[in-house]
């Protein structure tokens, strides 16, 4: 008899000082957390087995998030409620499990399907340009938004407008939905850099407070994108 592992998608939030913990260390943190919480996680085969675990999208140091995802496989069924309770019992302050859902058997892992992300961005107090909010609309209604992308070998002009799906501001907070993932990836800092150039403002280093809200998969097609939060591909496991 073949034993099937259950595919699980975990959503978590990362806030406060935990934003200073880098991606690799967060991975190590969760590997240990699975053991502390007695999650019956599946291991790879081979001489040195490792937990089957993958992250949707690395989060840069200094960025907080309400929408981080890990995919794992577990060997025995457990209810979402119990698993979340067990995991949250062993979390540190600033990291919280938000959902624990079962994915269909043939699901691709989150990393390969992410296509968009929501971000909220604020200027740190005292670092903001003057009267900038009203300029954001003009910025976004441009035909093209070109930025200079520097690689190790060359510099090139790129139009990032097609990768910005929405851009709004209210109460000093910019909300944006932008392309994210392996095919097209736009960093929110780059959008803000383009905006600052547009209003002729030179921001100081670390002027931005960046917060990721959500990661999405596209369930529409290329011409008509329809975004669904990654957790919504999974189903709650009931007791």
């Amino acid at each position, binding site marked *: 008899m073949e034993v099937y592992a259950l595919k699980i998608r975990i959503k978590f939030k990362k806030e*406060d*000082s*935990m934003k*200073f*913990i*880098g991606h690799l*260390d967060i991975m*190590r*943190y969760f*590997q*240990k*957390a*699975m*053991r*502390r919480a*007695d999650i019956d996680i599946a*291991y790879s085969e081979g*001489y*040195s*087995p*490792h937990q089957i675990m993958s992250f949707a999208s690395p989060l840069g*140091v*200094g960025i907080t998030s309400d929408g981080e995802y890990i995919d794992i496989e577990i060997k025995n069924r457990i209810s979402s409620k119990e698993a979340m309770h067990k995991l949250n019992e*062993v979390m*540190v*302050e*600033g990291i919280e499990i938000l959902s624990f859902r079962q994915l269909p058997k043939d699901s691709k892992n989150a990393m390969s399907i992410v296509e968009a992300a929501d971000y909220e961005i604020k200027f*740190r107090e005292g670092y903001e340009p003057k009267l900038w909010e009203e300029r954001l609309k003009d910025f976004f209604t441009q035909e093209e938004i070109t930025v200079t992308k520097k690689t190790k070998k060359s510099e090139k002009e790129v139009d990032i407008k097609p990768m910005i799906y929405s851009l709004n501001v209210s109460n000093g907070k910019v909300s944006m939905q932008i392309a994210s993932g392996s095919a097209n990836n736009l960093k929110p800092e780059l959008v803000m850099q383009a905006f600052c150039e547009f209003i002729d403002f030179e921001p100081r*280093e*670390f002027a931005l407070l960046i917060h990721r809200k959500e990661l999405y998969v596209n369930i529409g097609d290329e011409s008509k994108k329809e975004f669904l939060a990654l957790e919504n591909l999974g189903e709650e496991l009931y007791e």
Partner: protein
Amino acid sequence: MRKTALTDEILLSIDKPARYIGNEVNSVIKDLTQVNIRFAMCFPDVYEIGMSHLGIQILYDMFNQMEDVYCERVYSPWTDLDKIMRERNIPLFALESQDPIKAFDFLGITIQYEMCYTNILQVLELSQIPLLASERGEEFPIVIGGGPCTYNPEPLADFFDLFYIGEGETSYFPLLEAYRENKKNGGNKLDFLKKAAQIPGIYVPSFYDVKYKEDGTVKEFTPNVAEAPKTIRKEIVMDVSETFYPKKPVVPFIKATQDRVVLEIQRGCIRGCRFCQAGMIYRPVRERSLDMLKEYAYEMLHNTGYEEISLSSLSSSDYSQLQGLVNFLIEEFKEQGVNISLPSLRIDEFSLDVMSKVQDVRKSSLTFAPEAGTQRLRDVINKGLTEEVIIEGAGKAFESGWNRVKLYFMLGLPTETLEDMVGIAELSDKIARRYYEIPKDQRNGKVQIVASTSFFVPKPFTPFQWATMSTKEEFIEKARIVKQAIKSQLNQKSIKYNWHEADLTVLEGVLARGDRRVSKVILQAYRNGCIYDAWSETFDYSKWLAAFENTGVDINFYTTRERALDEIFPWDFIDTGVTKEFLKREWENAKNGLITLNCKMACSGCGAMIFNGGVCFEDKN
């Protein structure tokens, strides 16, 4: 929301901000309104090193079990943050509460090696605490030193209010009680120190005066207050199974040097190698019970989530329950993907069998520490490892598939001759020859032998405390001779040779056997910019040399000078249980090439029996 002492901007502009934010798994958060005593526990090196230290984890757990005590951790800020903190006048803070250290009741600093002495001054200065104990008023924390280097605390005497000599699990209880009492009675710092001086294991350096002879050696060392005892006996835990050990050690976010559960299986060592300070000062050997270790292995792995467990002790092969423990760990945890990492064991059938179960033979290497190149010199240092045993062990391992060997030696040992240096090369070669005795079709490629030499530093409380130390030039010449000798061996291509920094060794020599006059050299070196001396990228010998010059302290007085048998040493006021008479006897035995049997074979009357327990009261074979 947790606060951080450092701003986002600072944390984002330095390397590894996780070193400074705290909040790690199993770190302790307490309600400050319920706390009477705040204790900052410091390891004066970078976070990843400090977090790997077992002693702090034990004491952190022990202190925080006391309801009204809050123990927090602090480490040396790395040079990037050090610079920013100085520029912006940011006081050094504890990881848990992120509060400044200067507001604490105690700052306890563990002193594990000589080359961290300037970092102690860094920690004090960044904490905005005056460096000299004599200049610290009532408002500053009591600064306590502990750890192996406090077996000669004199070079650091000016900087500490008190030293705790010996194992920490005992006298901190009366010490903190004395502090509570003193606070309640409205006593000042001096009142507290006078009470502290009467507690076993506590040394208050300001309560003693040292007079020197014309030749610079100690004339007398005498208490200057009635409360201070003449000698201070080290503290020791006799029942190491019923004592404090952390079930929930703190787990760092970033990879620490020791990134695993550490299970200390015993304290002390039966072997009596004459160069080894740990082997003398931690006597007698005390084993933890198998039941205790099994329980802790399970609890600690579960509470940390670590994927690896490591056994820790001196000479682990001498632990009487080793087979039972290792087999238990393999049976219980191997299936769960837990790696078992073994300390260097004596190479025999059991250890080879175990190693082949827990590690990939192709990737792992065998380790031998013959320490000296000839049997004659091994007898001098009482290293009971013979050439036959090494060759036989290596042979067995080679036949089981190993092909990598690490060898550790020391250069500059007492009575060392040219023959002993060349012997290092010859022994390495003999091991290689043994490998090539295996038929070609049955062996696993080429053999790789790495021979490493460190330079010998005579340490207090060893039979070699009277020995002269080589100069830097002599050390370098010795290493050159070994290198040359290896080049002339048949299997020279299979042997790689590494040697240590000689100037670092010279400094270690001064600091290890220094007296109170060395305090000013340390202070001057720090003023000259020395910090992180244990790190090759920051170590600057010329600044140290300038410090010796500025202060007029002679290096050779502490290193190359031969000490007379009746000399009063700066550390003689400490009683480790092991008597000076025994050490003298061992020094004579060394010079005569006579070996001394280990504690399990016969009692050599070292004096540690005074502690009424451990190996001293077990049957001898």
